[in-house]
């Protein structure tokens, strides 16, 4: 199949943050220093090349951007200051919008105004609905139990509704990703049993983020620990998501603390607080190369998460200390942050929670399939004489 060249593709990527791709002169230093590049997945140079040539249809089928955890060594080493690390990051943003069938993600990534407006609109709608619902059904000075302002059974249903909408989008997008990378992107059909054989990759990468750790080993700075913090943030996040989706009624019950549930909530809060503060601080201080350039969506991502953590913690504390009115106010604020956050997920950086482990899984499958196909990978340099 012929691949069509899109000469304007490099300008499109500019909007996603890849500003300096044109500077690259293909020396391969970045691929050499990358701790993740191997014989099958050679990047970032190759991705830079595809970008320079405008091979949009080829890039959308690649998994390489997902294999990069942005340790920044390539950008530090780059003799042309072409910033390959940021290019890979931008490609991830572009891929998220490519997998998204609605086109919302691409709008969000290209215009911060659109994104912020959408978030505020959803937040206001949520707030209005909740306030209307609360005053029509409950008492503002009661937080939980009989006659509660926002009863936990209602919140549970509400959460599940939002969750299913989210799930529908995510499943469709993930299927789109699978089609692009594994069907369109594979030169030959991949046997089904490799999918089964490699299935362990999904939970393994999801819960350990082993590859991120491999990135980190290269750094010598004593306080450099994005892997640890990121893992804590991610585990805290997933724990909290499960708590909210399944155990929200127990979580909201009070004022006595249900340790069997709340202990997880506290642990998750620690992870989330530490994570958001660390990443906000890093992005402000720009102390490592990967935090030097922050795309608008990065800020929205981390600030919204920070607000969710603060309001969530606030309503919990107010409730336990008997300030039910304040607890209700913070609860509404919390939900005003959470709903746009969750609805935004399939269209934002947030989606890498799903795409990354899936990409690791697909990459492992593709690698095994390619090696089994006996594709000549280790061809020697051509010796003329």
């Amino acid at each position, binding site marked *: 199949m012929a691949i069509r060249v899109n000469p304007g593709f490099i300008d499109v990527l500019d909007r996603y943050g890849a500003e300096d791709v044109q500077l690259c002169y293909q020396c391969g230093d970045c691929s050499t220093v990358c701790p993740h590049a191997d014989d099958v997945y*050679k990047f970032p140079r190759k991705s830079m090349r595809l970008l320079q040539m405008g091979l949009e249809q080829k890039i959308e089928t690649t998994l390489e951007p997902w294999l990069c955890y942005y340790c920044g060594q390539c950008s530090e080493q780059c003799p042309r200051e072409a910033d390959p690390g940021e290019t890979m990051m931008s490609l991830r943003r572009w891929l998220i919008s490519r997998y998204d069938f609605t086109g919302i993600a691409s709008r969000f990534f290209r215009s911060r105004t659109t994104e912020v407006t959408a978030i505020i609109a959803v937040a206001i709608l949520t707030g209005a609905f909740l306030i209307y619902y609360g005053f029509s059904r409950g008492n503002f000075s009661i937080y939980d139990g009989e006659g509660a302002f926002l009863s936990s059974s209602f919140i549970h249903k509400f959460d599940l509704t939002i969750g299913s909408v989210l799930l529908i989008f995510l499943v469709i997008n993930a299927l789109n990703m699978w089609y692009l990378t594994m069907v369109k992107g594979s030169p030959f059909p991949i046997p089904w049993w490799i999918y089964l054989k490699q299935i362990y990759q999904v939970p393994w990468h999801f819960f350990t983020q082993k590859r991120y750790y491999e990135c980190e080993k290269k750094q010598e700075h004593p306080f450099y620990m994005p892997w640890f913090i990121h893992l804590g943030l991610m585990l805290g996040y997933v724990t909290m998501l499960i708590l909210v989706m399944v155990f929200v009624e127990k979580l909201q019950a009070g004022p006595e603390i249900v340790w069997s549930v709340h202990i997880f909530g506290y642990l998750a809060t620690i992870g989330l607080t530490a994570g958001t503060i660390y990443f906000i601080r890093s992005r402000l201080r720009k102390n490592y190369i990967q935090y030097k350039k922050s795309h608008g969506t990065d800020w929205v991502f981390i600030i919204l998460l920070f607000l969710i953590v603060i309001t969530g913690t606030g309503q919990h504390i107010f409730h336990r200390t008997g300030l039910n009115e304040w607890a209700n106010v913070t609860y509404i604020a919390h939900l005003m942050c959470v709903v746009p956050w969750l609805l935004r997920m399939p269209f934002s950086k947030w989606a890498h929670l799903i795409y990354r482990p899936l990409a690791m899984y697909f990459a492992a499958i593709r690698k095994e399939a390619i090696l089994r196909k006996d594709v000549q990978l280790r061809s*020697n340099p051509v010796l003329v004489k």
Partner: protein
Amino acid sequence: MRTGIFFCQAENNRNLNIDSIAKYSANLPEVETVQILKSPPPPEANFIAGQITSNSLDRIVIAGDTPGHFKPVFTKAMALAGGNTDEVLLASFQEHGARGENALDRAKAVVACATMGVPFPLVAFTGGNPVNHSTLIIGGGIAGIQCALEIANAGKQVFLVEQTGTIGGHMAMFDKTFPTLDCAACILTPKMVSVGQHEMIRLLTRSKLVSVTGKPGSYRVKIRQNPRYVDIKSCVACNQCVEVCPVKVESEFDAGISLRKAIYIPFPQAVPNAYLVDDKSCTYILSAGKKCGVCVKRCPKECIDLHETAHDIDLEVGNIVLATGYELLDVSKIEQYGYGVYPDVLTSIEFERLTNASGTTGGKIVTKSKRINKKTNKEEWFFSPEGVPPRSVALIHCVGSRNKNYNAYCSRVCCMYSLKFAHLIKEKIPNVTVYEFYIDMRAFGKGYEEFAERIKQEGTFIVRGHSASVTMNNGQLLVKGEDIFNDRLVEFEVDMVILAVGLIPSPGTEELSRILGVQRDNDGWFSELDYNGSPTDTEKGGIYVAGMCQAPKDIPDTVAQASAVAAGVLSSLTSGKGIGHLSSIPLSEIEARARKIHAI
């Protein structure tokens, strides 16, 4: 000719008052429109085409620091408007030396010449001061030698100032020259001997320029000659002093890969062929005469005087030639290559000395051997003629060159000498594997491309892709890189790594530019007056640049430039017009000359 002048100043960081130049140029003959275009963004061809049509312009002048940058757009616009594309002229401030105090007037003059269609160098000639017939050449490398011989052969007096103990410079250290594989010493040493014997050349070794006064045509210079401690005239180079000298230090001539004594001769063919004492390591001098001094007692000709002191020489010269050359970038700061950490990672000049038949191993290419230093009881690595030849060698191009973190520019010689190294290694060691990691192969000269092709035919592994890391695993050097043409990541086990290190101006360049008032460019090299039109002149009248000190270049180009400088010097001596600072011609004078030609 209806002329339109467009000012396109990309980065006006030189405080050049563009408005004032624009006002001046509006009064030039036949100027229809003068426009200052804001850039960035670059001007658009359609807009300019519109301007050409509405003002019915026949000629366009693009003025600015780098107007050539915008020429394609204007040419396109001219073509769109149906005009003659040959009438898109450039007025380049940067190229025509609009710098320093008279920058504004000079820029105006450049615009005036372009507007009237008169080549700037045609009218910007200078004259005036009578010229002293002796010439000072600073730097005794191949550029200085060539220039000195050309001028002296014409019967004019030359003072050749050299900082070290011998002339010859870097070329004397080389083994072979590319692409002809001639022996470098065979070309250079006869020239060195001629310099030493020439009656019109006065050689001042171990000397430095201290100060300059006077005006073009009659510079009074003060040269400080550091003591050599050995009388050149009576020394017969019998080597007995070296045999008794107890001090051992790294040899500069051997790029630090071998040791020499504190009293030494840089190399056997040195000119002047006499020994000298290194006052930074001699025990007698360092202890102020309390210790050692055995060489003085041993010398049969009694020509060693360790109490000699520096003295100043005052000279009056008409022209000054700068030929100060280059040095290598300090490669140990590019940490990923492990230079200085792993013993067998060499710089290009170290390898050049290793493979040279007059080098420490007699031209045998070997890896370093280990020995225990008895004094410090530490392991040290050194080259021994009995060393083991490497089984595989990696050559890495562009180390510190074309790299925005170090030198943004191309060092111009590395591709070719790396190819030459590949040939020398293949020639001297049977069954050796040579890997060349390159980004772009810049084989641009006469016979260079054929040479590169020949090296490929010889079976060198040419890897298109730069290696970014040299590591060591169990005593084995590992070179990692991306082989782009074969689409794979490679990791080669090698015994020796040779880094093609980038070139930087020699350390004295900055001081010299301060003493002489000659400008340097952003990279530190001396600025020529006009890169295309007068590549050997500087904006100071009677001061010229030759060889590497202007920009990296190979030996043929250096020699050519040195000869060109000699032509310039000799023409100033024989024309009778005299010389002056080019920037000293008043604007009115240049304009008047241009108008005169324009009228014709």
